[in-house]
């Protein structure tokens, strides 16, 4: 097991390194510089052969109930989309409310034992259990979401959520009047910290006076805790509430206090109303359908996918100014075209350290392990900010596009 762990870590490091090198070698302006798939160099992975009339059995392991209307709901929409797209050829089932950590290994193993061919594990805490079970079932495909470990039969998939996070920050920064924006977040892991930083960069690009206050709930799915955290931020004078949670509770708390909000995961305006200005959303269906198709064709290979195709912004509320919409659209286009990026210098930490110098942009490896806060975030980051991150890049900071 120890050797396996080292092997996995090495594979990841190499993949990250390759991704980082690939990024710097790509000429500016090439579409798709953000993301795309990096096939794992080693083995070909499992080949699924189905008997005549046999269905490809696909399983999803969810951390919350699908009724959360957020993270898990978005994954389940993709599951439904797969079922609709492939019809009789695929059977897609799920188990919801599975706790992260060792307990999830039981559920994942169970699916593998029951002969499921392709298993999606959709929460960060499922990473080690997924890799553990994958070594026992080398002929089963596993796709883990939001982690960093891969194996010949384990892919890792995630999206560049920092892009819509940043864009939603522009909307929030131009909407606040108190210049205090609240951010309800689950855990201070890199994924969440990256989102907070991207959002804050967006906020400060249009409103350098505004600050972002973060409250952690220590749970992905905890409707009462999420609501309480939002309430605490509203009591401190926040008039816009953003979030990194699984449910719509922070948005509801904001709406009840007649405050505005930015959703997450799904288009939360549909569940809460116009006070939700927009929501950074996931569209897992695009990627999941592609994976299922490739597994059916026998062409799927283990990959570390970190792309922009599966993220976006939900339609804007009528309360958002047309001028802001055009700024957002302009910057979004520049980022997706590869001429601009979110984390390009100069960027200061909230402790006053110049982390990314002018002319440099953060690498994927630095994005994936982010543990410091940018200027404008109120709170203590998980680690101290260090100078001299990022590497030379021809991309410009997205915030300079609309100046």
């Amino acid at each position: 097991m120890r050797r396996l762990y080292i092997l996995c870590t090495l594979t990841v490091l190499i993949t990250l390194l390759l991704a980082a090198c690939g990024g710097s070698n790509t000429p500016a302006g090439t579409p798709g510089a953000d993301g795309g798939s990096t096939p794992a160099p080693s083995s070909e992975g499992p080949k699924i052969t189905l008997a005549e009339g046999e269905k490809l059995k696909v399983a999803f392991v969810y951390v919350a109930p699908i009724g959360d209307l957020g993270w898990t709901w978005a994954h389940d929409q993709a599951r439904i989309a797969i079922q609709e797209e492939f019809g009789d050829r695929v059977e897609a089932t799920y188990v919801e409310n599975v706790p992260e950590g060792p307990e999830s290994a039981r559920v994942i193993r169970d699916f593998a034992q029951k002969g499921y061919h392709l298993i999606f594990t959709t929460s960060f805490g499922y990473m080690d259990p997924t890799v553990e079970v994958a070594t026992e079932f080398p002929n089963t495909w596993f796709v883990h979401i939001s982690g960093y470990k891969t194996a010949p039969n384990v892919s890792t998939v995630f999206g560049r959520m920092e892009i819509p996070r940043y864009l939603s920050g522009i909307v929030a920064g131009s909407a606040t009047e108190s210049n205090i924006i609240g951010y309800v977040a689950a855990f201070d892991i890199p994924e969440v910290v990256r989102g907070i930083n991207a959002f804050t960069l967006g906020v400060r690009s249009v409103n350098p006076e505004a600050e972002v206050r973060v409250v952690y709930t220590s749970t992905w799915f905890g409707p009462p805790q999420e609501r309480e955290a939002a309430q605490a931020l509203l009591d401190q004078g926040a008039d816009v509430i953003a979030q990194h949670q699984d449910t719509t509770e922070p948005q509801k708390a904001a709406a009840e206090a007649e405050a505005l909000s930015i959703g997450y995961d799904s288009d939360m305006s549909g569940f809460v109303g116009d006070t939700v200005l927009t929501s950074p959303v996931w569209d897992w269906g695009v990627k999941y359908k592609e994976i299922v198709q490739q597994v059916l064709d026998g062409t799927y290979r283990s990959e570390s996918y970190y792309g922009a195709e599966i993220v976006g912004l939900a339609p804007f509320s009528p309360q958002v100014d047309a001028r802001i919409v055009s700024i957002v659209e302009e910057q979004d286009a520049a980022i997706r075209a590869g001429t601009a990026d979110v984390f390009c210098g100069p960027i200061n930490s909230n402790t006053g350290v110049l982390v990314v110098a002018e002319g440099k942009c953060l690498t994927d490896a630095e994005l994936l392990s982010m543990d410091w806060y940018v200027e404008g975030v109120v709170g203590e980051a998980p680690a101290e900010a260090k100078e001299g991150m990022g590497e030379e890049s021809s991309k410009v900071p997205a915030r300079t596009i609309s100046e």
Partner: protein
Amino acid sequence: MRLILEKRLDIDPRRTLAIRALALVLALVAGAILLLSVGVNPFATYWAMLVGALGDKSALGQTLLKAIPLMLTGLAVSVAFRMRFWNIGAEGQFAMGVFATSLVALFGPPALPWLPQALWLPLMMMASIVAGALWGLIPAALKAYRDVNEIIITLMLNYIAIGWLEYLFYGPWKNPEGFGFPGSAPFPPYTWLPMVAPDQLPRVHWGLIFALLATLILWFVMSRTRWGYEIRLLGENPNAARYAGISIVRNTLLIMVVSGGLAGLAGMVEIAGIAHRLQQGIMLGYGFTGIIVAWLARLNPWGVIGVAFALAVLLVGGNQIQISMGLPAAVALVLQGLLFFFVLGGDVFTQYRLRVVEEGKELA
């Protein structure tokens, strides 16, 4: 006319059994109504639960794996409840056991590399028992010397212990090679609890042996030794115990050493047997479920083993029907809730009986 509950003078074991059986049947019937209302066949569902939890050796292994921590926390709670010390803190003592185990497994080998590798597991065990016992001694000492309510103290200490663990794996113990994600580095393989019989019972670790040994010892001590008699007497009639010269202070401290130590051991087998690293998801509430186990088992050590296993069947089986029957997680939770409601509710009638009292008449 009104209904009153009247204490029974005799407690007939056959009646107790009959009441339990009836409660079980009623729970299954109520569950069946629920299942019919969501449009699935109740018999097929119950069968799927049984098969899912006991159907083959792998399923049985999963169920035993779930039962091990419940057995140990159930024992921990029952021994304290025996002398009416309401230890609601098995969860916290479990957490401190996890803490001590991780401390030894992560920092022991690098500090003392010349120590034989085989010694680390026994050391982790001892550390977890000592840590759980010490955490249990805090409310015990407050109760023994200052008569502070132990329910509140043990409950509050749980959250301190859980918060302490979270602080460690989010902060100073975070794996330096973990890309900033929370969780400690993995333990070295020689600190992993070996499996009992990997071929017959996949993944079931030595915690099962520890739990069975602990049961045997506890049963012997409680029913066959002078100290066990003192504890039982203190629980059933503290005044009589005091007149007999039994020390309440000494026994309060001792009982919490045993109770906390067992809960700490539960934490050790869980992390050294399954997780092999300190991370999110290690605290699943086994300490709290242990209270239900102890209560359903009537504080009897052998009963704890049986109830813990039955509960594990329910938990694992409940999870299985999500896959095999495509039912939402909430259905399994409601079925579990119904069972607790009827069985615990039915327990009232083993000690009390319902009597109809005519208006105007007083009790004889």
